[in-house]
């Protein structure tokens, strides 16, 4: 290995490039940098293309950040900075946009409560709000054990109801000089299933998105493997942001990532987009999938129907929670809803945090299909 003091001058650009990448939040380890330099040496380097290939192979940017990586490479080795500046400016405005949208959203919520509901109801809802926080804390604690479980291939030691653990038993037999004491048993472990939350952030869901995001935060914190996406006119994965423990900080970060707040919904196309990315659709496989949306699809619902059918084929249980079902007169009568009703496992009320947490905590318990329930009602 080379030491820092006797590094030749020619290596400084490569060290500098690694530093630049780190500044832009690429994870670059020291061993990767030395690997990069070794690779450049091995390749000649005969041209800039060699250096680029070496950088790609050893510094390993993820495919979704590949363009950004290329731009940094261009700007660093060729001094072509135009692409970078644009990118950063764009990000800044986006953050501003989002925080603005958020304030508006909260204001709208307060207005709504003040204007439409009677004063007694208003007091009740204020108390509700405080209670929601406690509820989410309890939800977070209970979630991991309440999710539906599957049997893992891994085994745990057990004293009853298991299969013979040959390895441990044999050791025991040998150490006990051929005697066969009580045999050891092992059993396949059960692990909670994955949970996938798809949150509608379009304009028609404005009143509920902040509640839903707080719920999603609690879910990501509580469950081992939960994934959260938002969709409106486009699809955004916000699981990473929600991993931050502090709720407000996490929501602020998530808000900055989503750039289709309060717009229209293109539920069918965005869900299809979700399914067409292999690593995303793999989140849905065998998972409890909960969609938080009013499913008010404008125009043709054929795509929505296809997407929901594919989702339900992958998911362990596919549920749609809609705030509209809070109204006792609600029936799944719109064209889109009645088309997707046969593939849904649950169609439930998502108008309050209480209803939602209660429902999600009951996911492990079997229930009649959505179609059966709603047929009975109507």
């Amino acid at each position, binding site marked *: 290995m080379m030491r820092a003091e006797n590094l030749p001058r020619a290596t400084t650009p490569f060290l500098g490039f690694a530093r630049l990448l780190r500044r832009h939040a690429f994870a670059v380890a020291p061993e990767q940098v030395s690997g990069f330099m070794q*690779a450049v040496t091995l390749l000649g380097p005969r041209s800039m293309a060699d250096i680029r290939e070496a950088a790609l*192979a050893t510094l*390993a940017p993820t495919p979704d950040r590949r363009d950004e990586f290329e731009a940094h490479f261009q700007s660093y080795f060729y001094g072509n900075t135009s692409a970078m500046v644009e990118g950063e400016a764009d990000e800044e405005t986006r953050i501003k946009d989002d925080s603005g949208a958020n304030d508006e959203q909260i204001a709208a919520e307060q207005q709504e409560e003040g204007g439409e509901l009677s004063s007694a109801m208003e007091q009740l809802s204020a108390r509700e709000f405080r209670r929601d926080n406690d509820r989410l804390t309890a939800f977070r604690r209970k979630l991991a054990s309440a999710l539906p479980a599957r049997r893992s291939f*891994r085994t745990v030691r057990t004293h009853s109801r298991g299969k013979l653990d040959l390895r441990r038993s044999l050791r025991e037999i040998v150490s006990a000089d051929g005697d066969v004491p009580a045999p050891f048993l092992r059993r396949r472990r059960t692990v909670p299933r994955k949970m996938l939350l798809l949150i509608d952030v379009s304009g028609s869901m404005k009143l509920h998105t902040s509640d839903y995001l707080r719920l999603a935060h609690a879910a990501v914190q509580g469950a081992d493997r939960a994934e959260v996406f938002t969709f409106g006119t486009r699809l955004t994965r916000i699981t990473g942001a929600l991993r931050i423990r502090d709720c407000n900080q996490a929501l602020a970060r998530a808000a900055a990532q989503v750039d289709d707040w309060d717009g229209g919904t293109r539920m069918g196309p965005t869900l299809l987009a979700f399914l067409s990315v292999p*690593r995303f659709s793999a989140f849905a496989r065998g998972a409890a999938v909960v969609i938080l949306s009013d499913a008010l699809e404008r125009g043709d619902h054929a795509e929505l129907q296809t997407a929901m059918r594919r989702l339900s084929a992958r998911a362990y249980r596919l549920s749609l929670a809609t705030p509209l079902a809070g109204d006792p007169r609600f029936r799944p009568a719109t064209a889109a809803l009645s088309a997707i009703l046969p593939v849904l496992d649950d169609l439930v009320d998502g108008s309050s945090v209480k209803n939602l947490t209660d429902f999600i905590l009951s996911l492990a318990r079997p229930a009649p299909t959505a179609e059966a329930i709603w047929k009975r009602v109507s």
Partner: protein
Amino acid sequence: MSKPSAEISAASPEAVAERLAASRYLADESLATAIFLAIRLGKPLLLEGAPGVGKTEAAKAIAELLGRELVRLQCYEGIDAAHALYEWNYQRQLLAIRHAGEHEIDIYDDRFLIARPLLQVLNAPEERVLLVDEIDRSDHEFEALLLEFLSDFQISIPERGTIRATAQPIVILTSNRTRELAEALRRRCVYHWITYPDAGREAEIIMLRAGDVAEVTARAVAAAVQSIRARPLAKPPGIAEAVEWANAATILEKGGSPWPEAFRRAIGVLIKDEEDLSYIAPELGRIVEEALA
């Protein structure tokens, strides 16, 4: 560090590409460079890409290039040490104990040890290449185990002590990217993202792989497949499917179907999803005709 034989077969990226072509695998410049670097730096090679772009085939070709045997470890959810490293043959151990009677017997002898892929490669690093296939399907625990193996190339068996590799084995990992791999694992590897080849290269691959397909057919298939992949399908066709399609259409054509018709009738080997089929069916005629033109 690296062995003389490996150095000779990987003298430069171009030499690697040439030798891969000799074992019927066409690698683009970037992939050849990554393979060259992995062999010469003695690091594992991590190949990622959509299903059907030839990740596993690349591993087979690398093994052939080095003249070594390929040991494949297929990952799945719940794979554990007993499937990847080693296991004791308990039945034989018990029988041996009974058979030995009063005599002393070492039940942790080699003949009771079942070597699984990782141990097999460790035992003969100069003769074998390890392929850890679809590592994204395994769980995080297994990834951690693999990480330990890849950093030290050693396995500890409590009853036997530590087994070390005498030379650095060549390891290839593939992933469909259904989930993010641990950063630590990516960091240790030489990385390459395989994309679908462009039409020209795909036609070459089809010519090379398919039994006897005319060049015109190969070009038409490559062009049609490119255009089909651009559509939002649930399962875009991979390279292997394209090769099959060219084969199937050729057979049908020899059986008496005229050209565009043969392509349409053989579509079942290219697209294997009922919904995708019904989506593409109305446009298929036009796609094929454009590709043939």
